[in-house]
């Protein structure tokens, strides 16, 4: 136990500040009430769905849980079921083999259904495009609120995309700020 405690003490706290939102990544206007967004901003639950990615985006989404990004410290956590989720975070060019599973996950979510498409493939199919095997971007299958480009997007960019989805245009007071700040 002592070596573990020593290691924890020597490591210290590494968490960094939350980044700013990126309004230019918003695909459709925010439709939710500011007070709901404010609430979600402090306790947002995400269900991540890999709809056909190469797994690069998942590596970076997993990194959001590391001590530097400390996404749980912002009140955001990942859930196992879409029924517990406020947001779907979807990667991949949406393969035809995952299309139905993605629709089912979306339908299983309670309202309001926020969707963030992550990565170049999630935006428009990326390098894989649209083909006999893929539908292209996530928006060709379910409505998307925010699309985050990158191959893969960095953890900071992913966080910006997530925070953009729970901020509101023209209502800066509703934007999330880091509870740590």
């Amino acid at each position, binding site marked *: 136990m002592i*070596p*573990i405690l020593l*290691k*924890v003490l020597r*490591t210290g706290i*590494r968490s960094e500040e939350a980044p700013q939102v990126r309004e230019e990544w918003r695909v459709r206007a925010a439709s939710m009430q500011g007070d709901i967004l404010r609430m979600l901003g402090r306790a947002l639950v995400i269900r*991540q*769905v*890999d*709809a*056909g*990615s*190469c*797994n*690069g*985006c*998942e*590596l*970076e*989404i*997993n*990194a959001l*849980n*590391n*001590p*530097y990004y400390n996404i749980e410290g912002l009140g955001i956590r*990942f859930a*196992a*079921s879409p029924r517990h989720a406020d947001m779907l975070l979807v990667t*991949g*060019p949406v*393969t*035809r*083999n*995952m*299309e*139905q*599973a993605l629709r089912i*996950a979306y339908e299983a979510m309670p309202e309001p259904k926020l969707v963030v498409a992550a990565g170049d493939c999630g935006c428009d199919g990326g*390098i*894989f*495009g649209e*083909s*006999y*095997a*893929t539908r292209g971007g996530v928006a060709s299958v379910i409505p998307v609120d925010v699309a985050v480009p990158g*191959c*893969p997007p*960095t953890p900071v960019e992913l966080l910006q995309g997530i925070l953009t989805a729970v901020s509101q245009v023209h209502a800066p007071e509703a934007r999330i700020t880091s509870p740590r700040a």
Partner: protein
Amino acid sequence: MRRLRGLRTSPRALPGEVPAAFAGVDRAQWIEAARGAHEDGHRLVALWGADHRGRRHGFTAYAAYALDSGLCVLALQMPAEDPSYPDLSGLFPAANRMQRATFDLLGIVAEGAADTRPWLRHGAWSEREYPLRHDFDAASYRQNAPDRYPFVRVEGEGVHEIPVGPIHAGIIEPGHFRFSVVGEKVLRLEARLGYTHKGIEKRFEDFPVAGGHRLAGRVSGDSTVAHAWAYCQAAEAVAGVAVPSRAKWLRALLLERERVANHLGDLGALGNDAGFGFALGQFMRLKEDWVRLNAELFGHRFARDCIVPGGVAFDIDGAQVEDLVRQARVVHGEVRVLRDIFDEHSGMQDRFITTGRVTPELARDLGLAGLAGRASGQPADLRVDHPLEPYAELAVKRVTLTAGDVAARVKVRFEEIAESLRLVEAIATGLPAGDRLLPLPTPAPGGFGIGWIEGWRGESFVALEAGEDGAIARCHVHDPSWQNWPLVEHAIMGNIVPDFPLINKSFNLSYSGCDA
């Protein structure tokens, strides 16, 4: 062994840096050579096919075997009207899914195969369509047909099934697992993959040989360096260019850094799956530091698109060499402390030891590859067995254990991190001067080349055929997960359901790498 027993034709050497031979065979030799390979204990590395009707050669089936002297690629031409080849899965069980995938994509039949269920085709295209045939209409939209996959049923008193996926509970790739259990004990697991099939091999036909590395680097996100390097070896072989020494050393630097990054992430996740969150925090922190230096030095956190046909797209200077050496030493010290904590943690060891065991005999019979193979007594490591520059002079230390359980796969990772950190330092300080990139000549149509690289997970293999005007006629990228997925099904037998995430993570196989 220089050549395959049972092979009567004399193979010709393939161009490029990978030691490899190629032989056209008839049906009788195809199967005799496979028997010889099986009896002599050689590995089947990959099986794939191609549509050569445009050249009036019907279809071709390929099988690549690993011999002591290097690779041996056999090609069997089949008539356009009856494209079939003798089944290999009876000798090499790993061929089962490769043959089914090859049929789904090309419509060439493994004659005599016991299992002919579809693998990649879930209903996105019809039974009589084959996407890799040149007359396939790739652009037209198809309505998904209903998907009814006949899983193998286990019967008996108290047996029930737990279907899991394709969407899993965590932030991981999609696939379906069908557990047959009694109480908590798993009697049988059957995986069904193919959910992330993106049509990559068809997409390659839209790329020039000089640009296909970008697609190869996106076959499996965590192996972008290994696959891109293997692709570039193949591209350079068909184009007839020898890469400068400095480029080879810089490529090896990236490959070892990819190995360390993935091993660090896996050790954290394995600790976490055993209920030890401290491990996740510590190893994820080290991995983050590691990929941040990648971004600083190579312009990308995973070094994507850094290896290009003809060389590498980046270079480093003396100050950056110091950064690399300093970081390797810091991580070495930190991992040593964490390893002691792992070793002393009885609760975690209790979860690791004897869990998810694959015996060396089973590993040999089923062809377990790479890191997981080395934890089960299968010593293959291309960096040691067929060392190309710079590995020939770095004398890589091979890690082989025999316990074959989660604990062994954890230990292989610790040992390989230490060795790769040594290699990172040796490569960074030993970089030869000179060019880092040469122009890639336009390859002649019909040129065939291969790539073969020991990635962090195992052997990455690429077969490339050049088309007209520098285009890609056919590119097959093989991830070692093809060999290893069936072993996960064996590893879980007799274990309890809650240990599945731990066992699965200890292999950490790629879904996208096989689904392609």
